[in-house]
C-alpha cells in the first residue's frame, strides 16, 4: 500500500479529505496517486471499476472514500463491505488497513469474517457489525442467508470487490454477484467498487460488477513500466517432453542466489512438489527455500507465509495459491516454470515481482519441454504487445442460481416475481428467461421431476399469500451448511503415523489414495513418504530414506492453452525462419517442414504413419488439451465404427495422437462437423467426464448435500452412494430434467470443451491436409513421451478385470469354478 513520494495535489478534489488523512500522507511525504484521487472524486457513482497493476495502491484507492466518509464518527453500523477471493487476502488487508487507520486516529472499527472466524464472533458481527467488514464470497452468501440479514446490512453504503478479475468468470463470482443483488435490495443506494488487475476487456468485468442496468465507470491507472521479462536460457536444451522443468534447476538456483526473494510458479501442485524436491537435492548452499500450495496443511502454509513476511526465505516454490495480490516479502524476481497457458495469468504472476509502483517487474519463463519453448516465445510476444486473452461472454450458470434461490428461502419468505427481478440485476443473469427461472425455482421447491413429485415433502411451499417459504424451517441450517461453489475432488488428509506424532502433511485425492499399497513411496510437502495404511479417512505415512518416489503424482494441468496463445503459435509457424528461437527448437521446426509440413491456422494437419508395428494418426487441432482430449474420444469412436481398430490415444494442448491396428486412408469424414456432433450426442450418455460434471453441479444446485446437520463421520456403509447412479437414473427416467441440462452446458465449456472443437471446425472448414509419412514426424515425436494415455474403454475394462481375477486366483492357488 506504499505510495511513492511526489508533489501533493489536493486542489481538484470536490470533497476535501479530512485533515487526519491528509496529515497522515503529508507526514510520510507521500502523495495520492491520480487514480486514487479520481476514485475519491467520483465516489458517489453507483459503480466504479479500477484497473491497476499490482502494487499500484489499488486497495487504498478502494478504501479512501470509505475512510473519508467515516472520519467524523457519525455513521452507525456497517458502512463498507470488502470481499476478496482469498481468506488470506482478507486477513492481509485487515493488517494493512488497521495500521494506517490507527495512525490517523480515525474512529473506525475494522474486522474480518471468513471460514476461520469463531462462531461466537460471527454471531456478534451479525448483531453489531463493524464499520468495515472484510470477507469472502462464501462468508457473504452465508450472511445473506440469515433471517436478520436485513438488519445486519442496514446502512451499508459501499461494497469493494477486490481482485474481481479472479472472480469474474467463476462460479464464486456469480454467487457473489447474486448476493450483491440481494444487498442492493436490503440497502438501497449501495455503491459498488471493483478492483482489478490488468485485463483485456474491462467493459466485460464492468458489466458483471454493476447492478444491471446501472452504468459503471471504468478508471484505468497508469500501468507502470513494462515488465522486464525473458526466457531463462540454460546450457542444456529442454527435454522433448514432460512438465517439470527439472533440467533448469542449476540455472534457477543461480538466479535465486542473485536475487533477494524469488517466487517460482508452477502450473500444478504435483509439479511444484517434484521441482521443490529436486531443488533441495541440488541446493548445496542450503539456501532457505520453501514451498506453498493449496494442498498443504494450513499449519505448513502458515509457517511458510510467516517466514516470507519475516524475510527469512530466498525463494518459494508455489502454485496459483500465491497468484493473488497478497503483499508480503520483498520479491524481486518471478520465475514461471512451464508454459503459462494463458497470457493474463502470466502478466498477473509477473506483477508479483517488485511490488512497487514505478519499478519494472522482473520475470523469467522456463519452458518445460521443447514445444513449450515455442509456446513461451509466443507468450512473451503477447506480453510485450500488451495483448491479453479476451474474456468470453459469461452467462450465469444455473446451478449457482438454484443455490441462490435456496439461500434466499433460508432468509425468509419471498415472492417469485420479486426474486426474479432482483436476480436479473446481476449482470450475468440479466438475460435470464422467466421460464428458466421458474424451472430452477421448481427444482429448488419440488426437485423438478417430470414423472413424480414429492408433493408432500417438497422443500419449498407456496403460502396462501403467494410467497414461497421453506416447508420445514429447520431446512435452513442444512442449506447454510452447503453454501459454496467450489467443488473439489474428494480429498484425504495425509499425516505421519500417530506413533510419529501424527503431524499433518497435506491432502491427496481419494482416488490417488485408493491406488496406494503399503510400502509405496510418494512426494508430498517436498518430502518423500512411505504409505503405511489408512486410518479412518486419513492416509498414514512414515518418513523414508529413499531419494526417488515410486509413485509419480503427475496429474496434468487443468488449464488448456488459451485461444490467443494457440493462434500466436500458429502465426509463428507461417514464418520462413525463427531467429527468435534457440537453435535446437529452430532446427526442429525446419525439419518438420521438410519431412511433413507445419500446422496452419485455417487448415487441419493430419499425419499418419506406421511406428513400432502399429498405425498412428496425429491431428494438430491446437484446440487446447481438454478439447483435444474430447476430440480423441470422438475420433476413436468413429474409427472403431470404420473398423480401423483404434487402441488408444493421448492429447496435448496442440495435438491428439491415436494408435491402432489399421491405417487411415481418408481423414476427411472423421472431422466433419456433422459426424462429430452426432458422435458427441451418443458419447455424452455414459461418459465419465459427464458424470463428474454432473456431480459438481448436483452439489452446487443442492440436489445432493455435501454436509448434513449432526452427521457423524463417514462410516462407509450406506453413507454415500455414487452420484453416477443418480445421473444414470435421471437419463433413463427424466432425460429433460434441469440438472441434465445444466450438466450439458457445463461440460460444453468445461472439461469436455466442445466449444473449442466447434471453434476449430469453423476455422479449418473442409481444409484438411493429410500427410502420409513413412515414419514419426519431428512434431509428433514428443507425443509418444506424453503421460496420460487413454486406452479405448468399453470391453477393455471387463477384459482387464477378468485377466486380473485369473492372475489372482492362480496366485492364491484357487481354481475358478466358472462354467
Amino acid at each position: 500500500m506504499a505510495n511513492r513520494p511526489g508533489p501533493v495535489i489536493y486542489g481538484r478534489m470536490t470533497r476535501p479529505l479530512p485533515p487526519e488523512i491528509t496529515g497522515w500522507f503529508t507526514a510520510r511525504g507521500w502523495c495520492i496517486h491520480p487514480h486514487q484521487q479520481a476514485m475519491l472524486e467520483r465516489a458517489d457513482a453507483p459503480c466504479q471499476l479500477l484497473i491497476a497493476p499490482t502494487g499500484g495502491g489499488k486497495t487504498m484507492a478502494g478504501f479512501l472514500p470509505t475512510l473519508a466518509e467515516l472520519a467524523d464518527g457519525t455513521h452507525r453500523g456497517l458502512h463498507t463491505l470488502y470481499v476478496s477471493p482469498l481468506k488470506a487476502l482478507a486477513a492481509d488487508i485487515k493488517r494493512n488497513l488497521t495500521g494506517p487507520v490507527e495512525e490517523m486516529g480515525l474512529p473506525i472499527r475494522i474486522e474480518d469474517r471468513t471460514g476461520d472466524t469463531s462462531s461466537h464472533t460471527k454471531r456478534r458481527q451479525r448483531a453489531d457489525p463493524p464499520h468495515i467488514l472484510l470477507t469472502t464470497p462464501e462468508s457473504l452468501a452465508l450472511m445473506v442467508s440469515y433471517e436478520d440479514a436485513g438488519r445486519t446490512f442496514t446502512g451499508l453504503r459501499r461494497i469493494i470487490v477486490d481482485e474481481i478479475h479472479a472472480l469474474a468468470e467463476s462460479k464464486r463470482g456469480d454467487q457473489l454477484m447474486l448476493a450483491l443483488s440481494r444487498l442492493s435490495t436490503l440497502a438501497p443506494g449501495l455503491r459498488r467498487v471493483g478492483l482489478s488487475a490488468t485485463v483485456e476487456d474491462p467493459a466485460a468485468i464492468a458489466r458483471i460488477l454493476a447492478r444491471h442496468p446501472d452504468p459503471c465507470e471504468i478508471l484505468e491507472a497508469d500501468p507502470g513500466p513494462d515488465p522486464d521479462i525473458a526466457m531463462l536460457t540454460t546450457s542444456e536444451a529442454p527435454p522433448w517432453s514432460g512438465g517439470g522443468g527439472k533440467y533448469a534447476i542449476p540455472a534457477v538456483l543461480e538466479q535465486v542466489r542473485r536475487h533477494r526473494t524469488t517466487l517460482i510458479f508452477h502450473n500444478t501442485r504435483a509439479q511444484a512438489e517434484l521441482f521443490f524436491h529436486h531443488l533441495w537435492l541440488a541446493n548445496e548452499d542450503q539456501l532457505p527455500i520453501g514451498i506453498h500450495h493449496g494442498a498443504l496443511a494450513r499449519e505448513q502454509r502458515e509457517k511458510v507465509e510467516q517466514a516470507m513476511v519475516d524475510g527469512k526465505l530466498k525463494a518459494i516454490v508455489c502454485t496459483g495459491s500465491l497468484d493473488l495480490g497478497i503483499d508480503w516479502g520483498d520479491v524481486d524476481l518471478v520465475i514461471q516454470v512451464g508454459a503459462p497457458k494463458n497470457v493474463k495469468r502470466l502478466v498477473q504472476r509477473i506483477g508479483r515481482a517488485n511490488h512497487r509502483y514505478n519499478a519494472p517487474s522482473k520475470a523469467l519463463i522456463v519452458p518445460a519441454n521443447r514445444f513449450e519453448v515455442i509456446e513461451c516465445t509466443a507468450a512473451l510476444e503477447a506480453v510485450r504487445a500488451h495483448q491479453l486473452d479476451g474474456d468470453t461472454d459469461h452467462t450465469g450458470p444455473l446451478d449457482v442460481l438454484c443455490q441462490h434461490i435456496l439461500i434466499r428461502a433460508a432468509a425468509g419468505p419471498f415472492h417469485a416475481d420479486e426474486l426474479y427481478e432482483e436476480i436479473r440485476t446481476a449482470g450475468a443473469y440479466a438475460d435470464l428467461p422467466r421460464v428458466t427461472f421458474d424451472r430452477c425455482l421448481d427444482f429448488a421447491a419440488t426437485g423438478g421431476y417430470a414423472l413424480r413429485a414429492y408433493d408432500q415433502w417438497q422443500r419449498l411451499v407456496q403460502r396462501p399469500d403467494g410467497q414461497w417459504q421453506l416447508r420445514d424451517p429447520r431446512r435452513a441450517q442444512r442449506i447454510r451448511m452447503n453454501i459454496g461453489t467450489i467443488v473439489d475432488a474428494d480429498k484425504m488428509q495425509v499425516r505421519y503415523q500417530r506413533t510419529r506424532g501424527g503431524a499433518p502433511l497435506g491432502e491427496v485425492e481419494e482416488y490417488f489414495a485408493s491406488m496406494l499399497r503399503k510400502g509405496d513411496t510418494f512426494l508430498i510437502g517436498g518430502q518423500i513418504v512411505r504409505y503405511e495404511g489408512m486410518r479412518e479417512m486419513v492416509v498414514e505415512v512414515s518418513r523414508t530414506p529413499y531419494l526417488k518416489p515410486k509413485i509419480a503424482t503427475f496429474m496434468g494441468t487443468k488449464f488448456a492453452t488459451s485461444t490467443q496463445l494457440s493462434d500466436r503459435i500458429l502465426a509463428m509457424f507461417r514464418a520462413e525462419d525463427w531467429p527468435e528461437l534457440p537453435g535446437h527448437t529452430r532446427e526442429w521446426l525446419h525439419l518438420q517442414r521438410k519431412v511433413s509440413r507445419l500446422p496452419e491456422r485455417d487448415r487441419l494437419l493430419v499425419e499418419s504413419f506406421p511406428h513400432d508395428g502399429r498405425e498412428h494418426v496425429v491431428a494438430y487441432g491446437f484446440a487446447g488439451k481438454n478439447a483435444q482430449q474430447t476430440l480423441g474420444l470422438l475420433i476413436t469412436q468413429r474409427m472403431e465404427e470404420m473398423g480401423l481398430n483404434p487402441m488408444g490415444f493421448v492429447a496435448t494442448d496442440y495435438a491428439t495422437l491415436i494408435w491402432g491396428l489399421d491405417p487411415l486412408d481418408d481423414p476427411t469424414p472423421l472431422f466433419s462437423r456433422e459426424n462429430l456432433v452426432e458422435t458427441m450426442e451418443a458419447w455424452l450418455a455414459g461418459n465419465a467426464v459427464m458424470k463428474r460434471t454432473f456431480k459438481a453441479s448436483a452439489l452446487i444446485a443442492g440436489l445432493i448435500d455435501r454436509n448434513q446437520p449432526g452427521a457423524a463421520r463417514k462410516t462407509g456403509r450406506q453413507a454415500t452412494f455414487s452420484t453416477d447412479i443418480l445421473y444414470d437414473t435421471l437419463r433413463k427416467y427424466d432425460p429433460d430434467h434441469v440438472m441434465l441440462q445444466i450438466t450439458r452446458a457445463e461440460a460444453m465449456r468445461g472439461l469436455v470443451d466442445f466449444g473449442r472443437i466447434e471453434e476449430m471446425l469453423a476455422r479449418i472448414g473442409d481444409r484438411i491436409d493429410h500427410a502420409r509419412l513413412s515414419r514419426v514426424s519431428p512434431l509428433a515425436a514428443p507425443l509418444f513421451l506424453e503421460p496420460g494415455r487413454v486406452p479405448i474403454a468399453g470391453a477393455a475394462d471387463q477384459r482387464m478385470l477378468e485377466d486380473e481375477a485369473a492372475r489372482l486366483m492362480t496366485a492364491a492357488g484357487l481354481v475358478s469354478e466358472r462354467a
Partner: protein
Amino acid sequence: MNDLIFDFFGETLHALPSGALWWPGRRLLCASDLHLGKSDRMARLGGPMLPPYDTQETLDRLGADLSATGAREVICLGDSFDDLAASRDMVETLKDRLLGLMAGRRWVWILGNHDPGPVDLGGTHLAEHVLGPLTFRHIAEPGTTGEVSGHYHPKARVSLRGRSLSRRCFLLDDARLILPAYGAYTGGLDCARPELSDLMGAGAEAILLGPTPVRLPMPRRPR
C-alpha cells in the same frame, strides 16, 4: 445369461449380474437390501430430493431377473423397505407392480434392521428361513455355517494397472455368503474394512458385479 456359477454347501448357485442370487435347484431367487422407498424417506426427513425413480428402477430390475430365471420362490433378504412409512406410502402404481411380481410365487420377507415388520403386502414374514443346507437371514452371525445374508452392502476395490475399480460384490468363504445390496440408491461398504474383513474367513473370495460377474480373492488391506 452371464451368471457366475459356484458351489456352496453342495448346492449350485448363480451370482447374477444384477446382484441377485439364483438357486436353480429350488427355482429360488434371493435379493437383499432392496431399500424400496429410499428417495421418499430422504425427502421426508428433510434430506435431498433425489430423482424419485429408485423404487421403479429396483422393481424393474427384479422383474427382469424373475422373468429371466422363471423363479417360483423369492426371498427378500431384509431391509426391503427403507422404513415403515416407505412401505405404507408406496405409490399405487408401484405397489401394483410389486404385487404383480409377487403373484403366483412363494414370497418370503426376511426381517431386516430397517424393516418395519409385517406389512400389508402378503407373503411370509420370517426372521430367518432354513432351506436344506442353507440358512437365510439378514445379518450374518458369527459361528454359523451355510448362511446366506445381506446387510453390509459389500463392495470391492481392485487396482488395474494404475487404475482403481470399485464394484458391488458377493462375499464368499467356507461358512457364509454375503449378498450385495440390490436397491438402486444403496451405497456400499468396502470389504477391506474391518467389519467385513474380520467377519470373512481366510481364503474368502469376492464376486464382483458387472456385465459378467468376476470372481477373485477378497481384497484385504495390507497388514
